[in-house]
């Protein structure tokens, strides 16, 4: 099947070449980081995790978001999603691989990464995150490939695949729950220490994942003969809208708890992220424009996506899904992790700005993810079109 990825149009190869170029540049930056140490990034003693870990956290959500396509089809026999479940599974594969790459990029001693297996530590949430992420990667590789291959052969997939699919549905919930537990169980970090973190992670994941998928599906529709189908698109819009609204509801709950209780340590980080935090006459607000924009863009996106559906406009649909994705990316892929370190446990403020090398490595990991998605989707679409035409 993989040979389908070796035949493509000029546009396809140009896209691949661009991605490889970004990966090469990022690779060069990583060599620099390898030699100099993580000091080459913008991270510091106070903000000890940066965009690597925040991208990782966001992408676990994208991976789990694929669930929203798999679940209706396999659990509720929702036939309209039959054509796109494979896209959800393949996106999960790419997203989990990106997660693992971001973790490796963030390790001070990447050569010792396997110590996590050599000295298994069940009390550490990071140990469980390693277990669930690798498990989810394996499940999606096996299920996705087995199903597509049987389609390629023109037969129904084998019976052993079904239990694995059911397992992968519950597993998707676990990956993002455990990732939230990385943060939500730390006594000294008040912004993260909230029981609603895992539910909020899931809500934002179930909006961001399908939103990204919808954008990619629309691009595929424009460039190939593959059709997602109007009903499936409308249903995706419903899922994205509900999940995005629930995400914002949870955010509002967080705001209520903090500001009505007037509990200072629950307010500081939200002040820093959304309004600016003042100390000794200095104002710290480098993330405020982004976080405020995140809320505005998100609300516009939700309103617009419903309008786009009623107008049956694919362009509007793509733009509004993009807005929702961007809003959630800022919220979780930027503010969630970076904000948790401000103020530090001693009440001091250190602001974080990623370095050029850090941004380059991050871009390269994203490009790798897009490369994997491109290749997997090329295979999937080719197989499907071959059978249908």
């Amino acid at each position, binding site marked *: 099947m993989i040979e389908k990825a070796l035949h493509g149009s000029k546009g396809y190869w140009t896209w691949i070449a661009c991605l490889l170029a970004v990966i090469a540049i990022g690779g060069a930056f990583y060599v620099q980081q390898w030699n*100099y*140490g*993580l*000091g080459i990034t913008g*991270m*510091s*003693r*106070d903000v*000890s*995790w940066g965009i690597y870990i925040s991208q990782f956290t966001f992408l676990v959500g994208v991976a789990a978001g694929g669930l929203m396509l798999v679940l209706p089809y396999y659990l509720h026999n929702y036939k309209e999603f039959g054509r796109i479940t494979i896209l959800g599974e393949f996106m999960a594969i790419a997203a989990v691989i990106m997660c693992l790459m971001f*973790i490796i990029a*963030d*390790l*001070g*001693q*990447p050569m*010792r*990464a396997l*110590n*996590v297996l*050599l*000295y*298994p*530590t*069940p*009390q*550490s*949430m*990071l*140990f*469980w995150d*390693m277990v669930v992420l690798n498990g989810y990667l394996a499940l999606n590789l096996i299920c996705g490939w087995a199903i597509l291959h049987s389609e390629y052969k023109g037969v129904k997939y084998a019976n052993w695949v079904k239990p694995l699919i059911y397992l992968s549905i519950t597993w998707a919930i676990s990956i993002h729950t455990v990732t939230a537990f*990385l*943060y939500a*169980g*730390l*006594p*000294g*970090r008040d912004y993260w220490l909230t029981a609603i973190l895992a539910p909020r992670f899931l809500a934002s994941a179930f909006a961001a994942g399908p939103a990204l998928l919808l954008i990619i599906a629309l691009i595929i529709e424009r460039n190939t003969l593959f059709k997602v189908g109007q009903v499936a698109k409308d249903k995706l819009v419903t899922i994205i809208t509900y999940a995005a609204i629930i995400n914002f509801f949870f955010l509002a709950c967080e705001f209520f708890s903090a500001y009505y209780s007037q509990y200072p*340590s629950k307010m500081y980080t939200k002040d820093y992220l959304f309004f600016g935090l003042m100390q000794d006459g200095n104002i710290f607000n480098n993330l405020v424009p982004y976080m405020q924009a995140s809320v505005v863009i998100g609300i516009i996106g939700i309103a617009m996506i419903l309008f786009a559906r009623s107008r049956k406009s694919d362009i509007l649909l793509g733009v509004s899904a993009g807005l929702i994705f961007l809003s959630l990316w800022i919220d979780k892929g930027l503010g969630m992790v970076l904000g*948790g*370190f401000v103020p*530090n*446990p*001693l*009440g*001091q403020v*250190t602001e974080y700005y990623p370095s050029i090398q850090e941004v380059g490595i991050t871009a390269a990991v994203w490009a790798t993810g897009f490369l994997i998605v491109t290749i997997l989707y090329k295979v999937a679409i080719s197989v499907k079109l071959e059978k249908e035409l």
Partner: protein
Amino acid sequence: MKKDRRDFLKLAGCAAVAGVGSSTAFRSLLSGEAEAAGLKRAGTSKAMEGTRLAMVIDIKKFHQHRGLAERCIRVCHSIHNVPDFGNPKDEIKWLWTENFENTFIKDTHRHQTQSLHGMPVLTLCNHCDNPPCVRACPTKATFKKDDGVVAMDYHRCIGCRFCMAACPYGARSFNWRDPRGTDEHGNPFIDELNPEYPARGIGVVEKCNFCTERLAVGQLPACVEEATDYEAMFFGDLNDPDSEVSRVLREEFTIVRRASLGTYPSVFYII
């Protein structure tokens, strides 16, 4: 080595069979002493057994003897080969001073007596009885020894910095750069290496070890020894009623940092 393998298999079996509820994990989640008011979950009890090393710092004595804190820090950092990168971003510190209001951020108020405001207070790893960093570490590179010291195995640390996020006291530093390297003028980050103690490598986390290497040969922690003539620091076994820390804790009003977090620090302060 044979025993280690057995430990490993036992643990792997536990994890596989019982998942997160495995006995090791669950017991570690129940640890910690009772609140001052004596509150604890019904059915749980933790006997005060074994050794639990603790430290008492008298901040008034440090205020009276200017420069003593700096001497303690210097001796600590020089015997442990702690590098000085000359900037706060890469900073590594085992023992240092913070302003009173930052050290006790959640336990003080704005109208505190002026003499305390801005007063430098020695801070270090609290060697908590219920340490969040040990819970977070995915490789047991950070662990609690049976004498209560929260120690690190720098050979095993993968540099994930989960412990830094977990520590509510900012006691942990990361080697963002090679500590054995030199700055742009060719000056080494570690002025003079102490051949009796190792340095650390790039990409691992480090922190105060309560001078466990000195305790093993019957010496006091270096900072305590430095402050001993001024009776500014005390060290001993918290579970031994005859130890010096137990005596001082009985006689003086002391506080710990952020008691409400349930970490049960082993470093106490006389205000």
